[in-house]
């Protein structure tokens, strides 16, 4: 039985709208007619039939779409009342006194009622639609808020990471300066050879940590201001000269020859970052080439590019390093202390040069030694 009912409702739902409305109309009219027939049979009173039909019309206008069905039902109801349920039975007559009035008023009441219900229904539908769109809007809003929050969180997280790196680097810088400075003061005094060499080691290591911290700070600066490095026109030779002075202060034994071009190279750049690049390249050559003696730092112009080239006379670069540089990969992790810091230094160079719209390359010269070269747009 239950299954049958379910089947019926499924069928009902599958019917087109017109079919359903027609069904409702016919069913209710039939029910009303049956009711009137009973009333006439058992009470003999005929005046109530009009009211039964009015009730049916109200229900029809509630359950169907638009005016049409209810109006049709009102007309059918008026006709049936007259034809079947009033004297003379089974014939249409407007002759008895009051009949036309009763007929017309019944049809009129039906029409008014069905207009009113139709209007109420439309209003109810509108209210429902409003509620639905309000809810949809609300949900959309909530979704947007959630997405915004997620983006903000991601941004915050990125900023925090970079802030942490920066503040750690800052915090490292002060004690490292103090360590290196204190060691330098001690070295001025008469320590004896054994102590002096230990203190000198302390100073050397503190200094190379300082370089590393400066590299980290440069990277965080690049990351936090990626879109906006403060570029302004600088003399490349001044920046290069300063890098050489810095190197000489750190490695007094290093010999660097700075070769200037005839024309003046004015290049838009952040001078401190580019100085870091040149310093890193020179420092790499001093520490890793195996021949810290004589380096050349060459500045020249190639079309619209200003080229800076660092050449050493050492053992040259290994295939792994050359391949990694050519493909823009990070350097392979190296064994041993000799190459400590080389990878960081070079990848910092590459990101700084890239942020300036330039490129970094390396090669071995056929007669020995490695060449690092980077070009910046003028």
């Amino acid at each position: 039985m239950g299954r049958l009912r379910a089947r019926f409702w499924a069928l009902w739902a599958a019917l087109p709208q017109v079919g359903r409305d027609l069904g409702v109309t016919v069913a209710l009219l039939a029910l009303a007619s049956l009711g009137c027939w009973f009333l006439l049979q058992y009470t003999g009173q005929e005046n109530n039939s009009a009211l039964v039909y009015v009730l049916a019309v109200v229900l029809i206008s509630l359950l169907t779409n638009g005016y049409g069905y209810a109006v049709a039902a009102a007309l059918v109801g008026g006709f049936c009342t007259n034809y079947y349920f009033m004297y003379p039975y089974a014939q249409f007559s407007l002759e008895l006194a009051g009949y036309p009035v009763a007929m017309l008023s019944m049809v009129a009441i039906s029409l008014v009622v069905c207009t009113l219900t139709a209007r109420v229904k439309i209003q109810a539908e509108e209210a429902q639609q409003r509620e639905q769109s309000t809810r949809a809007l609300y949900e959309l809003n909530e979704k947007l808020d959630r997405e915004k929050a997620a983006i903000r969180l991601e941004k915050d997280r990125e900023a925090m990471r970079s802030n942490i790196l920066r503040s750690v680097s800052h915090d490292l810088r002060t004690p490292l300066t103090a360590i290196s400075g204190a060691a330098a003061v001690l070295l001025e005094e008469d320590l004896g050879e054994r102590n002096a060499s230990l203190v000198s080691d302390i100073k050397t290591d503190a200094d190379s940590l300082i370089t590393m911290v400066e590299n980290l700070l440069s990277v965080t600066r690049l990351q936090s201001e990626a879109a906006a490095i403060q570029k302004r026109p600088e003399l490349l030779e001044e920046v290069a000269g300063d890098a050489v002075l810095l190197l000489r202060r750190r490695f007094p034994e290093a010999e660097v020859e700075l070769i200037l071009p005839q024309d003046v190279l004015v290049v838009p750049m952040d001078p401190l970052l580019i100085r870091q690049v040149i310093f890193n390249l020179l420092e790499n050559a001093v520490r890793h080439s195996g021949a810290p003696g004589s380096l050349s730092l060459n500045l020249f112009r190639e079309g619209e590019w200003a080229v800076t080239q660092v050449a050493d006379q050492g053992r040259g670069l290994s295939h792994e390093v050359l391949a990694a540089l050519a493909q823009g990969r990070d350097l392979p992790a190296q064994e041993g202390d000799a190459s400590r810091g080389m990878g960081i230094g070079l990848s910092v160079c590459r990101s700084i040069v890239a942020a300036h719209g330039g490129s970094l390359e390396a090669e071995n010269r056929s007669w020995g030694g490695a060449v690092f070269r980077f070009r910046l747009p003028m």
Partner: protein
Amino acid sequence: MDDTLILVVEDERTISNFICRALSSAGYKPLPAAGGKEALTLYFSHRPDLVLLDLGLPDMDGLEVLTQLREEPGEETPVIILTARDRESEKVKALDMGADDYIVKPFGVPEVLARIRTTLRHASRVSQAALGKKRARYQVGGLVVDSDSHQAFVEGREVHLTQNEFKIMELLCIHGGKVLTYDFLLKQVWGPYTSGDNQILRVNMANIRRKLGENPSRPKYILTELGVGYRLLEDG
């Protein structure tokens, strides 16, 4: 020199420690102060000959300390700023506000001592100049700049400088050893209404260097202060 009193304003105890130790090893008398207020108190009670001033202090802005030191009329005690590398605009501001020189952290002992020597020498020269000893001829190593005849010589050979190039060299000599900011040089040479673009100054400087036969990696006369300005390199 043994009674040259140097006020060291630095809140990091370890840094202050090694600076003071280095100063006393070099024969100066250091006077440490850990904050801005303490620095001002010590300054007015002890009247030091030079102030080393860290710009990042816990209780006061270092620039504010500088302002208060400079408020006293006729006050010329040289001030050297200690500053972190990435606060470039701050050190230019400090120089324009009357600081004599700056040292960038992380710094080494020799650098600090060299800056102190230069600044003290410069300060004594300025007070001589204030006494009316105006100079017409400046000589630094092999470089001679003659203000009267508008001539410049390197190692006895005359160097032909344009008018602006000569003005730049003259300014560097007058303020021998002191950093001159780009802004200062631009205004002095090209007048107060020049645009902020300092490219013209840089190109002039590059030309001066070529005429003097100067290589920036081995400066003999002109030292570049990256992002700040230039100074004349005095021997020592």
